[in-house]
């Protein structure tokens, strides 16, 4: 969720010798949602026993050959279309050669010079307005296995379940300028991919990770500074922390007249610092070359057109519609389209109740409750139908906002629907003017001294009378009506 902080972009680092701008580009690795791996029939399900989902191809036995999984290709194309990007009808799989224990082939099959998706763009809603971030490319590649170093003091264990799962590497242009923009960018990407069903975006399970490129330059300077790449950061919070640390480190170096070495760095989450992993000189020579086991990937334009036609409504379009059709403001619409499930929930609630009130109550009490309980909208204890009933009860004046909060709590605890709760607990609002007037008259009679004080100018006491009415009605008195009657009677 985008939190409104300020109206103007103001993320700069102030050094003694000037004000610096931070330039950030991301290489996001998104695991493709598919039943089987990119080049083998092994399942991709998370959480299996180590090495349970490993075929002869994934473990690179002699004579094994890769065969492209068509579904993964379609997922990459869908994602490309969702990023408003150019789909390349001709792309090539290359081998990226390096040795590591969790890379069975001794090379990763990736796409180097000819990626499946070319340039595109993503729109971010920042407090200071809409911001466009360029996409450089998206390519398909294999994930590596996992090396587990902490199971045994002297041995490393290797789990190849992940080996060969399809990844989309989405490379942004160096268009991001602050940790907040990175936050918004990752969330937007994730949202688009979840809408498309191409990546579940689960960062805890590692389905979404990023390499973060950071450089700094004095405000006004056109040339980019020397960048450092922070490898494999797996949460937005860590990305933000790593950027803040890294940008400050680079500014300090520049301020003290030193140069920045182009290098690959690691973010230590415990010490909250980045440290050098390897310098440019030590950079791997990956010896990329086209994989002779695979033919170039040629996409039929009809396939691309068909996929385009079958795309769901994406967040940007949906947001426009929410503003237009439901009369929401941009902020509300933005929050409610951020996840497909949230937008679906909202539309169901709005359909059965009031557009605006539904938005207010979802973004307020419902989200707060889900947040507290560590739940999300899909496993909310309150169904959209029940929630709509609650909103409708407020709208119709059956219950007050205050009582609604009470009903809401009971709904969570009991799982009952609002109608039943309101009836059995007798929470229905008192909206009969005659009965209310009778009750208010009794209260005023009991508090004659206060009435006199009020009449002699102590108007603050109005709140006291409202309180007394609520107390005596058990909170059920219609607040608006109470106000009106009180004012009328106190005048007299």
């Amino acid at each position, binding site marked *: 969720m985008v939190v409104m902080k300020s109206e103007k972009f103001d993320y700069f680092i102030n050094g003694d010798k000037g004000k610096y701008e931070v330039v950030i580009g991301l290489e996001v690795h998104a695991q493709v949602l598919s039943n089987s791996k990119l080049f083998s029939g092994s399942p991709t399900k998370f959480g299996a026993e180590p090495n349970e989902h490993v075929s*002869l191809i994934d*473990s*690179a*036995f*002699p*004579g*094994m*050959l*890769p*065969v*492209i999984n068509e579904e993964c290709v379609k997922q990459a194309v869908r994602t490309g279309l969702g990023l408003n990007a150019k789909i390349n009808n001709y792309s090539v799989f290359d*081998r990226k*050669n390096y*040795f*590591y*224990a969790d890379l*069975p*082939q*001794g*090379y990763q099959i990736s796409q180097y010079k000819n990626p499946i998706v070319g340039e595109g763009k993503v729109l971010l809603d920042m407090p200071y307005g809409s911001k466009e971030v360029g996409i450089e490319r998206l390519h398909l590649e294999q994930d590596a296995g996992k090396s587990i170093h902490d199971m045994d003091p002297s041995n*490393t264990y*290797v789990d190849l379940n992940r080996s060969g799962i399809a990844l989309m590497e989405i490379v942004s242009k160096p268009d991001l300028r602050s940790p907040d923009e990175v936050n918004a960018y990752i969330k937007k990407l994730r949202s688009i991919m979840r809408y498309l069903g191409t990546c579940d975006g689960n960062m805890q399970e590692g389905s979404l990770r990023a390499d973060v490129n950071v450089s700094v330059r004095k405000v006004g300077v056109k040339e980019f500074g020397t960048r450092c790449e922070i490898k494999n950061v797996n949460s937005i919070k860590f990305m933000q922390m790593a950027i803040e640390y890294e940008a400050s480190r680079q500014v300090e170096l520049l301020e003290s007249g030193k140069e920045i070495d182009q290098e690959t760095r690691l973010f230590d989450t415990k010490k909250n610092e980045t440290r050098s992993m390897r310098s440019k000189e030590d950079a791997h*020579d990956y*010896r*990329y*070359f086209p994989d*002779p*086991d*695979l*033919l170039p990937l040629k996409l039929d334009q009809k396939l691309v057109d068909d996929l385009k036609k079958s795309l769901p409504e994406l967040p940007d379009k949906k947001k426009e519609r929410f503003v237009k059709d439901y009369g929401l403001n941009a902020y509300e619409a933005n929050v409610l389209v951020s996840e497909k499930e949230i937008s679906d929930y909202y539309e169901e609630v709005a359909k059965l109740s009031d557009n605006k009130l539904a938005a207010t109550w979802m973004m307020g009490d419902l989200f707060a409750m889900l947040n507290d309980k560590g739940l999300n909208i899909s496993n909310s204890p309150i169904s959209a139908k029940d929630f709509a009933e609650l909103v409708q009860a407020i709208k119709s004046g059956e219950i007050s906002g205050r009582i609604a909060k009470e009903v809401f709590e009971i709904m969570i605890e009991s799982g009952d629907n609002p109608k039943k709760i309101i009836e059995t607990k007798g929470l229905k609002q008192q909206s009969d003017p005659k009965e209310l007037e009778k009750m208010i008259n009794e209260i005023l009679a009991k508090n004659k001294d206060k009435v006199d004080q009020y009449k002699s100018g102590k108007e603050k006491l109005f709140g006291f009378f409202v309180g007394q009415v609520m107390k005596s009605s058990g909170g059920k008195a219609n607040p608006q009506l109470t106000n009106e009657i009180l004012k009328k009677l106190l005048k007299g």
Partner: protein
Amino acid sequence: MIDITNQSLNQIIKRIKTKEISSTDLTKAYIKNIEGAKKLNAFVTTTFDYALDKAKQFDNKPNFDQLLPGIPLAVKDLFCTENFKTTAGSNILNNFVPSYESTVTKNLWDNGSFLLGKLNCDEFAMGSSNETSYFGNVINPVGDQIVPGGSSGGSSSALAADLTPATIGTDTGGSIRQPASFTGTVGLKPTYGLCSRWGIVAFASSLDQAGPMTKDITDCAIMLEAMSGFDEKDSTSINKKKENYSKNLKDNIKGLKIGIPKEYRVDNMPKEIDELWEKGKKILKDLGADLIDISLPHTKYALPTYYIVAPAEASSNLARYDGVRYGYRSEKGKDLIEMYENTRSEGFGDEVKRRILIGTYVLSSGYYDAYYLKAQKVRQLIKKDFDDNFTKVDAILTPSTPSSAFKIGEKTNDPVSMYLNDIFTVPTNLAGLPALSLPAGLDKQGLPLGLQLIGKPLDEQKILNIGYAFEKNCGFKNEIKKWWS
């Protein structure tokens, strides 16, 4: 009594079908030959018990409709065979027993044959004399101390010595055709993609192709028919209808146009090779074919191109042999990197290391464009040479090799002279074309020499037909004295 093992495969199949001989007796005859031929060192592994068992099963319930009914076959040790050790001639796979069967061997078994043993070869099919094998060099039955060619040297030796009725090899730059030429046998490298590469230990993926090695053309047609076919597990496999090569074999080649490329008359080529080529031309002309002089101008670049492309792919293909999951692992080394270094230093032989180094070098940043990329461009030009000429001719006739089989040790210290052996065979691998090596005569020392017929893509039937007509009129007979037993 006739020696059944001296017969060609098609003759043996006839005798099996007429129940003149049982599969068991046939298998026993080969086992006897193999046991008496240890000196040739053609086998890495024998599977006699398994073969006898399968032969018995066949005899109990024979199916004579199959292409290879009850036929025992030894195959190059580059094909993965389920439950039988597959070494690729290397120490690094010395202990490797696959849990799977290569598509090509499975096709053979599905046609009624069964495994008799695994045949020696150059390590990872890298060599032209079978001298790079971890399991020692193989001897050519045509004469003691003579190499059988490579890399399918165990295959050519076993076939010529009657240790298997037919066999299969793999050909990346000539590894079927050169050993066939050196042993007076028939060898065919099919069109790239005709036979699946799945389950074959890879050397250079864009060039590797499995093919038959047989005593005559009819056998070659039968074996090709049995082993080939589309395989969805190999992305480079060609999806086409299976052909009946043996049934469609014809010896009428009247009117066919045969191209004679001038570039194959190389400097310092022995006169005998030239004479053999002339003899071949005359035979085809007498059979009614038209000889047409053609030019394949980029031929001279084929060998250097091959020795960039093949090692580049090999350097990457062989990265998986790291001691982590299977195969040989060195006990030495204090960390992962040292384990890799020691495993690969101890596991690979010199020729393999040489090619990994060349391949790594030509793919390195700063050298990629000058070597690998340029080689790929030249490869296209070589292919275009063939394409251009195949609009004018039906097939191309050349010598198979620039010399006859040489002595063991003669070229081991001179890799370039060894590589020159492939000069006539590599262009077709680079172009992906089918090519057949036919026995055509003997040199002064009595060593066999072969001629090569190159065809259009997927035109195996035509070069087999030309070979068939040639064979009937050439008068060559491989007379090998069994000096080793």
